[in-house]
């Protein structure tokens, strides 16, 4: 029986030796674990604590609600509508493809949307939610809620979208908003702009008043779990809603003007208060529906807008430039009078053309006007008188007068995209054309042709400054703004201009105005003595104006001889029709500029529009009647 114990002692001592060795190794490894604990929990604990907090705490900005926009009577032009949005978060893009695949089954997103979503989900930092789809109908909301268990990280969020109840009518003035672009961030460090759901004014007032309309973001500190779901709120600071804007536009007048322009393919009308500079109506046809931008414009809709020859996205009132033609003759006349180149009694001859070297400068009236003074020359739009007046005054004085009346520069309207037009001068021609100024250039400038271009707004500003007695009024779109809507109210009416005076001789201004009165009373627009129904205009509403016809294409001698009429030319080569006017005659308050693109003749096409618009404006008298303003009850 000793057999089984034989050798056990030896075996046992080997076992003991090796077990001690093994135990020693285990002790070393256990100490390594303790060492690792020390490294993680004592040496690096600060760093890991920070990382844990970054995991857990999420600062979310509360986008402020955008300020509303109203017309001067308090009618809504841009409002916020509730918008149910499907939002998604993912844990740093993990599972993004699967999630997007499931969302596609619900919404039918399409390939482009799918790849955008996956990209945004991957890029989104701190589980910041990403917009899947906006403006959900209740059916889509229901379908999403039904499938919620399969869609971790997807939730429905109540946001706001911009809504433009007047659509195309106010499109160019109000503009629209869109996603924040990189260039929008320049000079603005507002963190709320980093939010994917944030919208930024792109055009019109939405753009020019952007920094006021936007408001200030609030912030909420939340604790989130690994999939970005909010567990609880830790801290909240309320933001401030954007300030609401009351525009100078009279919506009803605007609608009247748009209605009146309906028969013409393309054109623009600007109505100004000559005392305050308030823009009462500003129409550019055709327009576009800004709501398509607010809900997200499709590629094909965008193409259509861009490719249309009538350029619906282009605000012709401020960005369309046209040769002013005869509407510029007041500038030439005033420059000549103020510089004493002519006096009120100077009569200049016209026998149908003027020769400069071997070039003939024609008057529009073939036989000529005979001898005219400045008033008659304006009334009948005698070209020869203004060739000569321009020659006497010289380009420098004309350009200077034009600048004072608002040409060749941007106004203080503030809308984006406003053009300066071109007010040519010696320096301008030398720089841009590279040739010295010629006498012929002065002749052309005298009748608003040649290099000269202006916007409809500039024509309205000129008319307003002539009508108000020479005050440098600036056009203005913002009547009032206030953050709580209840405080929004129009200012008291004003009857005296506050703008600085241009220091023009009142007598000269009176002569110019008299010429414009005569245009309607007996001159080129005497068909406007009666209203649209053929009834004589009431004395209180009598107005003054000036017609203009701007050449798009030079009339060649051959065409002149052949007697080709404008109606025989293709539309895009026909003359532009222009008309500027102000009224009432004895106490001017409103000015209006009309351009009908390729409308052929100013008096015939643009004139009646100007008359009807001005009559409507004077009847409504929006500048003096503030009783129509009503506070909007909260919707």
């Amino acid at each position, binding site marked *: 029986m000793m057999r089984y114990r034989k050798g056990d002692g030896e075996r*046992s001592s080997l076992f003991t030796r090796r077990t001690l060795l093994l135990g020693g190794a285990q002790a070393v490894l256990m100490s390594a674990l303790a060492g690792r604990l020390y490294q993680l929990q004592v040496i690096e604990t600060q760093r*890991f604590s920070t990382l844990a907090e970054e995991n857990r705490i999420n600062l979310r900005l509360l986008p402020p609600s955008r300020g509303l926009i109203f017309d001067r009577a308090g009618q809504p032009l841009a409002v916020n509508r509730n918008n149910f949005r499907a939002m998604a978060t993912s844990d740093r893009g993990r599972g993004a493809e699967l999630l997007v695949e499931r969302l596609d089954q619900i919404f039918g997103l399409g390939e482009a949307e799918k790849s955008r979503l996956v990209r945004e989900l991957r890029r989104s930092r701190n589980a910041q939610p990403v917009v899947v789809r906006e403006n959900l109908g209740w059916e889509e909301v229901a379908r999403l809620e039904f499938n919620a268990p399969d869609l971790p990280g997807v939730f429905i969020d109540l946001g706001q979208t911009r809504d433009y109840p007047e659509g195309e009518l106010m499109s160019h003035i109000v503009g629209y908003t869109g996603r924040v672009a990189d260039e929008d961030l320049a000079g603005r460090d507002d963190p709320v702009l980093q939010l994917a759901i944030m919208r930024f004014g792109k055009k019109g007032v939405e753009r020019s008043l952007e920094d006021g309309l936007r408001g200030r973001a609030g912030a909420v500190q939340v604790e*989130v779990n690994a999939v970005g779901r909010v567990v609880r709120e830790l801290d909240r600071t309320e933001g401030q809603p954007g300030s609401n804007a009351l525009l100078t536009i009279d919506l009803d007048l605007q609608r009247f003007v748009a209605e009146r322009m309906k028969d013409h393919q393309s054109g623009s009308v600007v109505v100004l208060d000559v005392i305050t500079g308030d823009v009462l109506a500003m129409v550019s046809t055709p327009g576009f529906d800004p709501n398509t931008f607010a809900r997200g414009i499709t590629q094909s809709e965008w193409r259509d807008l861009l490719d249309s020859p009538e350029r619906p996205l282009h605000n012709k009132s401020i960005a369309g430039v046209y040769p002013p033609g005869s509407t510029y003759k007041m500038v030439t006349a005033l420059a000549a009078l103020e510089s004493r180149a002519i006096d009120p009694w100077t009569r200049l001859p016209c026998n149908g053309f003027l020769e400069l070297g071997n070039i003939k400068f024609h008057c529009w009236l073939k036989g000529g006007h005979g001898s005219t003074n400045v008033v008659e020359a304006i009334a009948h739009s005698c070209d020869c008188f203004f060739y000569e007046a321009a020659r006497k005054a010289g380009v420098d004085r004309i350009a200077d007068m034009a600048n004072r009346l608002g040409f060749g520069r941007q106004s203080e309207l503030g809308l984006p995209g406003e053009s300066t037009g071109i007010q040519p001068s010696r320096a301008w021609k030398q720089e841009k054309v590279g040739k010295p100024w010629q006498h012929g250039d002065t002749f052309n400038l005298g009748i608003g042709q040649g290099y000269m271009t202006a916007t409809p707004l500039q024509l309205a500003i000129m008319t307003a400054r002539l009508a108000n007695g020479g005050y440098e009024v600036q056009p203005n779109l913002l009547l009032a703004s206030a953050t709580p809507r209840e405080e929004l109210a129009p200012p008291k009416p004003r009857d005296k201009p506050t703008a600085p005076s241009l220091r023009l001789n009142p007598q000269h201004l009176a002569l110019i105005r008299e010429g414009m009165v005569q245009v309607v009373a007996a001159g080129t627009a005497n068909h406007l003595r009666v209203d649209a129904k053929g009834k004589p205009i009431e004395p209180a509403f009598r107005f003054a104006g000036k017609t203009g016809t701007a050449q798009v294409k030079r009339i060649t001698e051959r065409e002149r001889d052949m007697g080709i009429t404008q109606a025989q030319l293709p539309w895009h080569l026909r003359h532009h029709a222009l008309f500027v006017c102000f009224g009432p005659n004895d106490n001017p308050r409103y000015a209006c500029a009309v351009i009908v693109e390729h409308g052929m003749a100013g008096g015939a096409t643009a004139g009646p529009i100007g008359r009807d618009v001005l009559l409507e404006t004077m009847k409504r008298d929006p500048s003096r009647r503030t009783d129509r303003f009503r506070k909007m009850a909260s919707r």
Partner: protein
Amino acid sequence: MSLALDAPAPVGFAEKIWRINWGLVLVLTAIAAIGVVALYSAAGGRFEPWAARHAVRYCAAFGLMLVVALIHPRVWLALAWPIYVVSMLLLVAVDIVGKIGMGAQRWLVIGPMQIQPSEIAKVAVILVLARYYHGLRKEDASRSLYTLPPLAVILAPVALVMVQPDLGTAMMVLLGGGALLFVAGVRLWMFLAAAITSIGCLPLAWSLMHEYQRKRVLTFLDPDRDPLGAGYHITQSKIAIGSGGLFGKGFLKGTQSSLNFLPEKQTDFIFTTFVEEWGMAGALVLLALFALVLVWGFSIAFRSQHHFGRLVALGVTAMMFLYVFINTAMVMGLLPVVGVPLPLVSNGGTAMVTVMFACGLLIGVNVYRDAQFPRTR
């Protein structure tokens, strides 16, 4: 001859109960209690679904342990091969079912029970190796030829487990078996040769690995490779442990686990869950409890009068160590991510039963420490 003189007097039942290492039982219960606390916290301060079941499971496994401890080692010596063979057959069955099923299949469902044959294999390998070396003379044990059968005994389950694939269990069987061979007296140069061979086989192993396993290894070697993808688990675990600091964030106040930044917080990463809330102090207490178990294991092995008991005790101790070390080193980013639970703390029934069964064997060695039985071949 003098059987009555040599052989110790038979041990009575009361004596057996007295010989149970109640201190060790207390330590094990303390570890399981820590498991209940950690699981209660992992469930966000609720007993359901893990903590309550964990406690119930421990009570059941506790009974099993006592029963196993009171069975004479002779029985286990006799049963070693049958248990081994059965566990091999089950492993093959799992692999076949796994082929039919999807992905990594580790369970067999028999009636209401889910059993994990790889867990049985861990214990079976210890028993078979102990039996083998119990019957060998010292000179034979150090002969290389005699090392071949135990190598086969170790490598067969390793291969079957690798197929599943279950890298963690394979590593445990390999290293645990290796430890047994080492203390049984296998020549040191053979271990050296084995180490060199396995390094040489690394490329082969690499090519046999699943994509996710390769990713884990690469992530381990360079955690910043893909911090949001494969490295995510280990990064979040380190953040949780590190942010716990010296004394932790407090009971139920662990943000990483309660907000689900921590993956597998109730199973493989339960250590992280616990340490985030109890800090380095809690971690050291838990590790110290495990160290106590190991020390107890060694002392039982030393006190055993028979070689079978020594080897079983050592094998169980090595297994416990491997469980604890691999799991904690993994969650602290010292080892690649492999699926090894923390014994008695992680949620899960099979590991609990295996560990308690093994502890029963260990205590049994102490209870029957002076039993004498012949070498059998």
